[in-house]
C-alpha cells in the first residue's frame, strides 16, 4: 500500500516536471529568447564558471590542509623519506600548474563570454609562444625525471650483503614468511613439494632448510637493511607495506625482491601516533580473488637486540613438524636433527 502511494507520488512529480518543462520551452519559443545568444543563460553559465572555480579552490585548499593528518601516512623507512619528499615536490609543481591552468580556463570562460558588440580575436598561432610552452614543460619534466631516476636507482640497487633475508609467500588468501634460521641461508623449495603443512614446499634434501623457521608474524630489525624475497604459489599477489612505502608483486614462478631499511620500531610508532594498539600491517594490492581484501599480516619492527632475541627463540619448521624428517636423505639425518634442534629437545 505504502509502496503504491510512493510510486504514484513519484509519477505525479514526474508528470508535473514534464508539464513545466513543456510550458517553459514553449514560452521560450514564443518569446524568441532561445534565438538570442547574449542571453541570461549565457551570462549565468559564465558566472557559474567563475563561481565554480572559486568554490572548488577553497574546498581544495581547505581540505588538503585541514585533513593533512588523516591522509598522510607516517613514514617508517629510509627510502620512504626520499619518495615522500619527491611526492611533495611533484605536488608543489603540479599544484601550481593545476591552479594556474584552471584559473585561466575558468577566468577566460567568464571574461570572454558572448557579447553582441564584441568580435573574437582572429589569432590562429604564435610560434614563439608555442615553442615556449613546449620547452618549459619539457625542462621541468626533465628535472623531475632526473630526480626520480636517481631515487629509483637507489631503491632498486642490489641489496647490501648483510641484509636480513625474509621470504614472503602469498597464497589465497594469506601471507606466510620464512626465515633462513641460524645458518643465514634459506633452503631450496619446489612447488611440487607443497602440502597442507609444508606450505612453502621446503625441500628437505637441502641442508639449508633444516633450520628455516616459519613464524606467524614478520619481525624485522630497526636500522638494518631487510631484503624481502617475494613469491606466490597460486595467483598474483602484491606485497604492500604502506608505512614503509614498499610494494612489489608476488608472481608464481618468478621470484621478486624488495629491500628497505625500517627506521622506526613498532614501539616508536605507537608513541608517534599516540595509538598504543598500533601495528604495522602488510596488505595485498593485486587482485587475487575472493579474499583479496583480507590478506593481512602484522609486521613488527624490533630494536636490533630484541630482534636477535626473537630470532634465536624461534623453533625451526622441522622441529615443529618432525614427521618431515622422513623426507631428509639418510646421510643428512644427523645434521638435520642438530640443525633443527630436535636433539636438544629430547
Amino acid at each position, binding site marked *: 500500500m505504502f509502496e503504491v502511494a510512493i510510486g504514484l507520488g513519484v509519477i505525479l512529480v514526474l508528470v508535473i516536471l514534464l508539464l513545466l518543462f513543456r510550458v517553459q520551452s514553449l514560452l521560450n519559443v514564443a518569446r524568441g529568447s532561445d534565438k538570442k545568444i547574449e542571453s541570461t543563460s549565457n551570462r549565468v553559465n559564465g558566472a557559474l564558471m567563475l563561481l565554480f572555480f572559486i568554490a572548488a579552490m577553497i574546498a581544495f585548499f581547505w581540505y588538503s590542509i585541514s585533513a593533512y593528518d588523516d591522509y598522510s601516512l607516517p613514514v617508517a623507512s629510509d627510502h620512504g623519506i626520499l619518495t615522500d619528499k619527491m611526492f611533495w615536490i611533484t605536488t608543489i609543481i603540479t599544484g601550481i600548474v593545476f591552479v594556474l591552468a584552471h584559473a585561466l580556463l575558468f577566468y577566460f*570562460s567568464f571574461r570572454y563570454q558572448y557579447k553582441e558588440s564584441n568580435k573574437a580575436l582572429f589569432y*590562429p598561432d*604564435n610560434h614563439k609562444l608555442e615553442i615556449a610552452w613546449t620547452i618549459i614543460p619539457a625542462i621541468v619534466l626533465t628535472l623531475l625525471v632526473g630526480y626520480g631516476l636517481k631515487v629509483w636507482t637507489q631503491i632498486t640497487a642490489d641489496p647490501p650483503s648483510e641484509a636480513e633475508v625474509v621470504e614472503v609467500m602469498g597464497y589465497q588468501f594469506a601471507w606466510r614468511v620464512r626465515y633462513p634460521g641460524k645458518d643465514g641461508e634459506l633452503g631450496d623449495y619446489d612447488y611440487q613439494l607443497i602440502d597442507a603443512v609444508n606450505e612453502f614446499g621446503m625441500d628437505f634434501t637441502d641442508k639449508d632448510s633444516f633450520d628455516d623457521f616459519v613464524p606467524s608474524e614478520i619481525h624485522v630489525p630497526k636500522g638494518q637493511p631487510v631484503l624481502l624475497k617475494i613469491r606466490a604459489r597460486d595467483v*598474483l599477489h602484491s606485497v604492500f607495506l604502506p608505512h614503509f612505502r614498499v610494494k612489489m608483486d608476488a608472481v*608464481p*614462478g618468478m621470484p621478486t625482491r624488495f629491500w628497505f631499511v625500517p627506521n622506526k620500531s613498532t614501539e616508536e610508532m605507537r608513541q608517534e601516533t599516540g595509538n598504543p594498539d598500533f601495528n604495522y600491517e602488510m*596488505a595485498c594490492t593485486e587482485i587475487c580473488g575472493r579474499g*583479496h581484501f583480507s590478506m593481512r599480516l602484522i609486521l613488527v619492527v624490533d630494536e636490533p637486540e630484541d630482534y636477535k632475541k626473537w630470532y634465536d627463540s624461534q623453533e625451526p619448521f622441522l622441529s615443529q613438524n618432525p614427521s618431515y624428517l622422513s623426507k631428509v636423505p639418510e646421510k643428512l639425518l644427523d645434521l638435520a636433527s642438530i640443525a633443527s634442534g630436535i636433539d636438544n629437545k629430547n
Partner: protein
Amino acid sequence: MDQHIAETAGYHDEQWHSHGHQKESFVTKYIFSQDHKTIAKQFLITGMFWAVVGGALSSVFRLQLGYPDMSLEWLRPILGGWITETGQLDPEFYLAMITMHGTIMVFFVLTAGLSGTFSNFLIPLQIGARDMASGFLNMLSYWFFFASSVVMLISFFLETGPASGGWVIYPPLSALPQAMQGSQGGMTLWLVSMAIFIVSSLLGSINYITTIINLRTKGMTFTRLPLTIWAFFLTAVIGVLSFPVLFSAALLLIFDRSFGTSFYLSDIYIAGEALSHQGGSAILFQHLFWFLGHPEVYIVMLPGLGITSEIIATNSRKPIFGYRAMIGSLLAISVLSFIVWAHHMFVTGMNPFLGSIFMILTLIIAVPSAVKVFNYLATLWRANIRFTPGMLFSIGLVSFFISGGLTGIYLGNSAIDIQLHDTYFIVAHFHLVMGAASFFGMLAGVYHWFPKMFGRMMDAKLGYIHFWLTFVGVYLIFFPMHYIGIAGFPRRYYSWTNFDVFNSFTDLNIFVTIAAIAVMASQFIFLFNFFYSMFKGRVAPANPWKSNTLEWTTPIRPEHGNWPGTIPNVYRWPYDYSKPGAEDDFIPQNVPFSQTLESNFPHENDLIGLEKEEEGIVIDENETH
C-alpha cells in the same frame, strides 16, 4: 585523383541521384543499414545502453564501499544468490561488478560507443564523402559489436557469474577456474566477447582509415581537415596496430585455459594440487595486455580531444589556436602511446633499468599533452564564447584533462608509483583523465551534433542543468579519491575494515557514494532530453551553431548519400571564425576565396587563381564521362 576513386567506388553524382530516391525497407534502413549515419546511431544507442549498465554497477559497488554494513536485501530480486544470507554483497560478486564495470566502460562505451558513433557519423560528413569506403564492412562492424555485447550480457546470467579478475584479466587468476568462480564460464565468455569485439573494432578502424585517405572531397587536403577527423584517423591507426596484440594475448590465454599450454603459467599449487604447468610467464601477459592497454586509453581519449577542439573553436567564434601544433601533438601522443606501456608494471619485478626507460618515455608524453591544454586556453583567450551545452562539456573535458593529466606525472615517476600503484590514487587519476574526460567528449559531441543526427535541437536548459550537476558531481566523486589513495587504500577491495591502517575515511567514502548516486541520477535528465528531443524537440536550423565544417552544408535531415546534388568543394581550413574584414563571424569551408575578397590574406588571394583552374578541371572530367 580523389574524384576518380569516388567514381570507381560507385559514388558518381548522377548515379547517386537515382539511388537516393530508392525506397528502402525497414530492415535495410534501420537494422542492417549500410548508411554511416544510421550505423553511427546504432553505436550511440548501444553505447548509451551500456553506459547505463556500467553506471548502475558502479552505484551498487559504491554502496558497498560507502555503507559496508548496509543491507542490500532489496537487490535480491535482481542479484539473487549474490546477496549473502546476511544481506551483504558477495565479495566475489563485488569483483565481478568492478570487472564488468571497467570492461564495459572502457571497451563498450568509450571505444565502440564513442569512436563508433562519431567516427562513423562525422568522417563522411566532414570530409565530404557519400558514405564510408565500405558500407558493408561498416555494417558488419556494428553487428560484431552487437554480438560481442550479447555474449558479454549473457555472462551476467551464468550461475558462476561474469569474469571477475579485473578488467585487465591478469593470469593466473583469470586462467585457473579453481582460483575464483568468475574464472570459469564467465571468463570464457569474456574472452569470446572481446575477440568478437576486436574484430568489430578492426573492421571499423580499417574503414575509417581508408575513407579518410581516399574519399576526401576536392580541396580537402590533410591540412584542411577538421581536428575531429585527425583525431579519429589517428585513433583508428592506433586501434589497428594495438588491438591485434590483445587478440593474441587473449588467444594464448584461451590456450592456457582450455588446451593445457603454459604460456602464462608456471609453478602453481592451487586448491590442494600442484599443476603441471611450467616455464610460462605471468608477466608476459601483462606486457601483451598493456601493449594494447596503454594505447587503448588514447583510443578512448583522442576522439574526445578532437570533438572538443572542434566545439571549442566553433563556440569561441575563434580559430583553434595552433592548428598545426594540435595535429603535431596528436601525432606525438599517438607514436609515444606505443612505447610507454610498462609504466603500468613498475612493481611487477621488471628489471629496474627497464623501469627507468619507461619512466623517461612516459614523462615525455606529458609534453604534447600539455601543449594541447595550452592551445585550448589560448583559444579561449579573447574569444566570444557561447555556452552551448556542447561547449560546457568541452570546457569540462579540458578541466578533467588538466586535473587527471597532472596526476599522471606522479604515476609516471616510478619511485613515487611504488606507493601509489594499485591504490585509489590510480582510480582517481584514470577516471578523471580517461573516464570523465572522454565521457564529457562524448556528451559534448551528442549535444553538438544532435541536430545533424535527428534534425531537432536538444533542450539547452536541461543541458545546462545536466552539465553542472555532472561536472560538479564528477569532481566530488573522484577528487576525494586522491586523498584516500595517498593514505594507501588499495583498489579492488571489497571492504577496508580488516586493516587498522585503512580503517578511516568512512565519512569521505559515504560522501563519495552519495555523489556517485547523484551523478548517476542526473544522467536521466540527459536520457530524457535525448529521447524527448528526438521526437518533440525544436526543429533544427541548417547550421545551428554557425559552424564552418561541411556537415552543416547538407540538408537538415541528410538522406543516404548525404548531399542531394554534387559534393561541395573545399577551399579553406575549417577555422575561419571572426576573420577580420569578413561580414559574418564564420566562413564555411566550401566558400571559395574568390567570394571573400574583403577578408583574404595576401597568400589567400594568390590561391584564387588556383581555385579557378581547379574548377575548370572538374568540368573537364565530368564532360569526358
